[in-house]
């Protein structure tokens, strides 16, 4: 198959680039080494949209963060992705930290962050009643928000696929040849040909770049561990609560999620292994200890799961978004660590600009800008539910008891453009298995539905592709 542009990596960056380019009459492939999109950094991060006062003025991070954050609400609306403009607070516990807030405020002003304001202790406790009594002041950033990062990625891919992009799963790029002005990209079994490559491979960006001899990028996986708490304590924080930043990042935050849970994390540890998303008990207890400095009433009792993600840290400390020095038809989109999610909508536009400066692309007249809103039974009124089940009885059968997810929603997830192929794929699209029982009851039903819809035996269904099988052979 011959493409104009092949994007390597279906994280939030690659997926939004694919969607943005699908406005034009060009052939696009979005290749992903896993069984689904959003399987790396995009599924395990803080899920927040930063206001943009952290990055150094003049950096690409500063520019794209502020621009991306401004674009996010509208984009989420078009893609039917939940976004909540909750705003963020950076909390100071000492006079020294209060000075840091002032520095952040000044930096934010230079970066063009709207609405920044320093709250005194009274105002802070007023807007965030569960905050530590010892908190002295806070930097309030109204433009910050929360978003579901994997849902954004899934929606972007779905919309891109509807607009003609080929989403190619389980294609791990092993070699890239360049001859006669064209790349041949291979996973060792199949080859695709393309005029341009966009390297959006996250922590693997350096390895993909090295396939064309570009060794200028060095990605250091920086692991961040998180704990997710039950919805019963989701209201302990009204806003994203940061502590004062350090060299390793923005520290441990406490934030509500768009689904009403409470998220604590991340830690920050530079590691070697780009596959290592394991959690450690020491780090998890450390996270809780630090998070309790912000919200003292937190306990482990409400933790329903923990996870880790890797940030694609580059020694340059800024996003690297430019054609490779080795081949100007190969565009690196590397070093996308925080505020990568916040910047993603702006990064997509920025990369589109680079591509359009090279290709003569015509805008499509039939581009579909909006993604149809998935059915979310749990958010409906009883009258809406009644009407829905009358139209399609599959919405009358609850599969996931904890999150009230219906069979109809699971079938929709499987049959969507670029639909779910494994249990975690169903979980990310529908929330089935994300509740307090963590799939204890619905897991086996989801396996059954996947097997039936995909026409395979149930022991072929995996948790998340590869060798993550769930069942072995039949019993005796």
């Amino acid at each position, binding site marked *: 198959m011959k493409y104009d542009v092949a994007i390597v990596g279906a994280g939030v960056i690659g997926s939004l680039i694919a969607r943005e380019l699908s406005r034009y009459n060009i052939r696009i492939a979005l290749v992903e080494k896993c069984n689904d999109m959003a399987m790396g950094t995009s599924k395990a991060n803080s899920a927040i949209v930063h206001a943009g006062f952290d990055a150094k003025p003049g950096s690409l991070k500063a520019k794209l963060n502020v621009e991306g954050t401004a674009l996010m609400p509208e984009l989420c609306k078009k893609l039917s992705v939940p976004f909540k403009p909750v705003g963020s607070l950076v909390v100071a516990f000492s006079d020294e930290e209060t000075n840091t807030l002032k520095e952040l405020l000044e930096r934010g002003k230079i970066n063009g962050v709207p609405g920044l304001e320093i709250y005194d202790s009274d105002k802070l406790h007023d807007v965030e009643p569960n905050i530590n009594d010892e908190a002295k002041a806070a930097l309030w950033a109204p433009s910050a928000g929360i978003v579901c990062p994997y849902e954004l990625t899934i929606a972007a891919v779905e919309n891109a696929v509807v607009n003609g992009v080929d989403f190619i799963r389980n294609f791990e790029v092993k070699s890239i040849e360049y001859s006669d002005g064209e790349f041949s990209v291979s996973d060792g079994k199949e080859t695709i040909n393309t005029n341009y490559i966009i390297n959006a491979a996250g922590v693997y960006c350096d390895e993909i770049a090295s396939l064309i001899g570009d060794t200028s990028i060095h990605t250091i996986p920086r692991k961040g561990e998180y704990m997710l708490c039950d919805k019963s304590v989701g209201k302990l924080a009204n806003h994203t609560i940061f502590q004062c930043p350090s060299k390793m990042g923005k520290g441990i935050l406490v934030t509500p999620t768009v689904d009403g849970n409470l998220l604590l994390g991340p830690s920050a540890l530079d590691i070697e292994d780009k596959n290592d998303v394991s959690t450690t008990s020491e780090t998890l207890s450390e996270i809780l200890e630090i998070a309790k400095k912000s919200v003292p009433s937190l306990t482990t009792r409400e933790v329903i799961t923990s996870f880790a993600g890797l940030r694609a840290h580059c020694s340059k400390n800024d996003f690297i978004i430019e054609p490779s020095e080795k081949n100007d038809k190969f565009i690196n989109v590397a070093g996308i660590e925080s505020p990568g999610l916040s910047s993603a909508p702006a990064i997509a536009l920025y990369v589109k600009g680079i591509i359009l400066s090279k290709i003569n692309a015509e805008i499509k007249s039939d581009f579909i800008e909006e993604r149809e809103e998935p059915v979310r039974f749990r958010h409906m009124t009883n009258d809406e539910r009644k009407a829905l089940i009358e139209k399609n009885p599959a919405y*009358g059968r609850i599969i996931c008891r904890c999150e009230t997810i219906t069979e109809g929603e699971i079938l929709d997830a499987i049959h969507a453009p670029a639909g779910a192929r494994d249990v975690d794929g169903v979980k990310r699209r529908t929330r089935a298995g994300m509740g*307090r029982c963590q799939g204890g009851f619905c897991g086996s039903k989801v396996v059954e539905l996947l097997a039936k819809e995909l026409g395979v035996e149930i022991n072929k269904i995996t948790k998340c592709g590869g060798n993550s099988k769930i069942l072995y052979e*039949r019993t*005796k």
Partner: protein
Amino acid sequence: MLNYDIVVIGGGPAGMAAALKAKECGVDSILILERAETLGGILEQCIHTGFGLHYFGEELSGPEYADRFISLVNEKNIEYKTDTMALEITENNVVYAVNKTDGLLEIQAKAIILAMGCRERPRGALNIAGTRASGVMSAGTAQKYVNIDGYMPGKKVVILGSGDIGLIMARRMTLEGAEVKCVCELMPYSSGLTRNIVQCLDDFNIPLYLSCTVIDIHGKGRIEGVTIADVDENRRPIKGTERYIECDTLLLSVGLIPENELTRAVGIQLDPITSGAVVDEYRETSHKGVFACGNVLHVHDLVDYVTLESQTAGEGAANYVLGKSSEAEYIETKGVNGVRYIVPQKVNIKNEGDIKLYFRVGQVYKNARIVVKYNGEEIISRKRPRLAPGEMEDVLIKNDMLKNFAQGGKIEISVEV
């Protein structure tokens, strides 16, 4: 809007026994709502025997035990809807439920019996470190895969937690050809029944490591092994005791949680220890006309006791519907000194029968006494050779004793060694 005298939420052993008893007491308009495809609840996947010894005086498998009640439900023409999920109950005892054929149901009940059962505690609640590989599942999920679906969830198994389902699955997986490497129990004693430890572990030479837990999970796609370690008296892993065990499956049997989402949503008072509703001797909750029984009220050790308790709730609901409830003067019950909780939490002293109090102890005791005090004065003392957290205990308060109590009094049960 549909109308029933009694709506029973849950068609497992609790729901069926409650419905049957209510029918026997003279209520005809009863509807059972069951979320699974069949009546019977979790018993349907419990194909081992050991059920019914107390209630029927014979040893039955789970499906056989359930079938006796399913047959009766059919025989007595009690209405039920399967594959039907209750979504909400309201202040006015309206139940909202959904299924594929009726769509959204709105049912006005005079009384509601909550019998939703319980669920297993998941991995996340334990905060076990490591990867998120496949092959980590609750013992009950594995039981469904093996016994209902007919597929093996793994070959080399480590079980964390010695709850009864974990013990049962140790034997079941072994019989199906898997190698069960060990059962690790965080506490210095098992939370399972003694008979299950003997019949499911000892008989198959499966080691039970007490004061031991899983501290790390290894494997990228599928789980490849776990690190286990001994724990000290504060349940913290002891450095130097870590050992790696290769396995492709980790089953969790680390506790059961009553499923009280509907209960909580309507504002019914819950007991923080049982995680079930606070009830009186007829298992009526803080919400008039709403009763609770079975594992949704407190986790039972044997289904036989679930049946008995549910009959009590069924009778209570019937009395409520038929206007036969007696006037009420309550005393409180409270577990102290080794007794974790008591159900019921309050007792109407105007009740005309004897009252059985059920409770669990917090640790293993040998040659101890169970002491019941009324307002600080000892009224009953019973010797017990052995008390364990895994086994439910009970004492009977005779009606002539009840008659001597006064409203606002307090019964305390304690363990004395």
